[in-house]
């Protein structure tokens, strides 16, 4: 799969501080999560990709194009939703979004048409003629999303999109992000410190710590890999453990009838049920051992950030 964003020894210094320290990695996912504690450099990375901060070393490429020298061209393919408030309070919602579309290069007629569409798409169709300053916090977040979508960019950079939203509005925002992801027409980068948001939407995650890559992992692969680990609880053993070992599974038994099993590629779960039936064993509980994003994040936070020379960031 071709890279959406490639980081090559990317370094950003602001004043005397090194905010991003030689980042390396290739991000290929449809929806990429940027995770990290406050001050880890997530927003700085997004701002650097947008050309707001010049790299002091290395570079980054978006869709194969270097951000140095191509930033204006790249910006026309990017939609940016900042973390903080960003709107023109005195303008009506529709006029504001249309304005942003026209600045992106859409002719006036198309800009107006797509502004209406964007408003309906994010669910604010009914309030589009109200001034943005009168919107609630949730509405303002959705207006920010509408101005991201209006010019139909191929890369969406969303900085903390669920900030300050109530649970219902948050779900709506995540639902919209998933819908856009599922169309496959745009890549999304979400910066957040909320693991749950990232886990719900993203298929790849870049974890930053102190301005360095702490981990870069493909959540889809992780999820697939996790399907091989099973935790079972049975009523009694009755030769079942030996039978599944003969089947080719690695198995460890624990007190209380608990079993931990590693399934080979060619063995299906259905076969375990068949064996259990043959040995008159009841399977009372079966879980995939899920290495959650939280585990991955905590592991990344415990470990040292990437070694400068060799890091690819992959877990």
């Amino acid at each position, binding site marked *: 799969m071709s890279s959406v964003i490639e980081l090559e020894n990317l370094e950003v210094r602001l004043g005397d501080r090194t905010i991003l320290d030689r980042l390396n990695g290739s991000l290929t996912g449809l929806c990429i999560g940027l995770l990290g504690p406050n001050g880890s450099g997530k927003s700085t990375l997004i701002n650097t990709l947008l050309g707001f901060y010049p790299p002091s070393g290395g570079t980054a490429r978006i869709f194969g194009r270097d951000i140095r020298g191509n930033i*204006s*061209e790249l*910006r026309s393919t990017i939609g940016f939703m900042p973390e903080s*408030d960003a709107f023109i309070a*005195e303008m009506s919602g529709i006029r504001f979004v249309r304005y942003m579309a026209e600045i*992106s290069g859409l002719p006036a007629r198309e800009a107006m048409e797509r502004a209406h569409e964007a408003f309906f798409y994010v669910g604010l169709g009914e309030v589009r003629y109200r001034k943005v*300053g009168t919107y609630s916090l949730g509405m303002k977040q959705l207006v920010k999303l509408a*101005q991201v979508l209006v010019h139909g960019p191929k890369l969406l950079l969303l900085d903390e999109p669920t900030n300050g939203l109530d649970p219902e509005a948050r779900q709506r925002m995540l639902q919209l992000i998933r819908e856009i992801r599922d*169309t496959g027409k745009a890549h999304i980068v979400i910066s957040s410190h909320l693991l749950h948001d990232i886990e719900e939407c993203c298929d790849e995650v870049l974890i930053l710590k102190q301005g360095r890559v702490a981990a870069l992992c493909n959540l889809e692969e992780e999820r697939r890999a996790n399907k091989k680990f099973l935790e079972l609880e049975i009523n009694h053993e009755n030769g079942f453990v030996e039978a599944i070992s003969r089947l080719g599974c690695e198995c460890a038994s624990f007190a209380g009838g608990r079993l931990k099993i590693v399934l080979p590629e060619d063995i299906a779960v259905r076969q375990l049920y068949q064996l259990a039936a043959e040995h008159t064993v009841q399977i009372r509980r079966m879980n995939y051992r899920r290495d959650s994003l939280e585990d991955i994040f905590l592991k990344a936070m415990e470990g040292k950030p990437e070694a400068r020379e060799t890091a690819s960031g992959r877990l």
Partner: protein
Amino acid sequence: MAVYKRTYKVYEGALTPSWSRFLVLSRFSASSLFDSRRFTAFTFLCLMPVFIAAFCIYAVHSSTVQLMLGTTLKAGNIINNVSFWVFLQIQVGLSFILALWAVPDMMARDFSNHALQLYLSRPLSRTEYLLGKVSAMVILLSCITWIPGLLLFGLQAQLEGNGWGGENLWLMASIVIGCLLWIAVIALLAMALSVWVKWRIAASALMVAVFFVLPGFGEIAGSILGTQWGKLLDLRYVLTLIWTRLFRIPLHYIHGWDYDGIPLWSAWAAVLGVCIISLLLLNRRLKAREVERG
């Protein structure tokens, strides 16, 4: 993306030329200003002296009007460089109020809620952003200064005839140069101060201070040090000095005014300095993200 389909769609249609994008800012900025009825009314009020001047020019050339007014006037003695100078002084005064109203309002909209980052995350550079805002002001202020000035010049030349237009062609250049100089100073200074303080009221107050309080400090400094250079802090003085020379105003027309306080070159240098400082300030503060050093 369509309303009825509710699905995300990448835009693949035609785009406007990138060089013309700054005009979108000009258009939206100007139209936002005219959303205010009071602002629209005031702009029309600024055009009233133009209509009065046009009537005066017509009146001095029309024997019928003079008969009705019961007076006899000779156009050549009345309509000259001084009358254009007086007319433009009035327009400049009105344009100052207009700029005081419009620029902080226009800039504060973008700065009060951090909208600047949305502009600059699109294919629009800081220069284009500035160009868009400046051009909105240039168009607006031109409409009440040099454009009516030239129209009145044309009217006078037409009605006067006898080669008056050709003889006074230099006056056309004076009108354009003088007004554009004023517009450049007022627009850049107002923008720089608005971007610096990012607060509409404070920006307007600072503008007033620069034009009316700073000269006081200049006078005090000049008195203490026994020098005339303090006048360089008085932008009104500096600009009037340039204008009087541009319009070739005879000394006796400006009684009580220190015509030779500072040399002309220093007045031009002061104006240029103000423009450069304003641009430097804009370059420093007009950023999508501010970096806290340390």
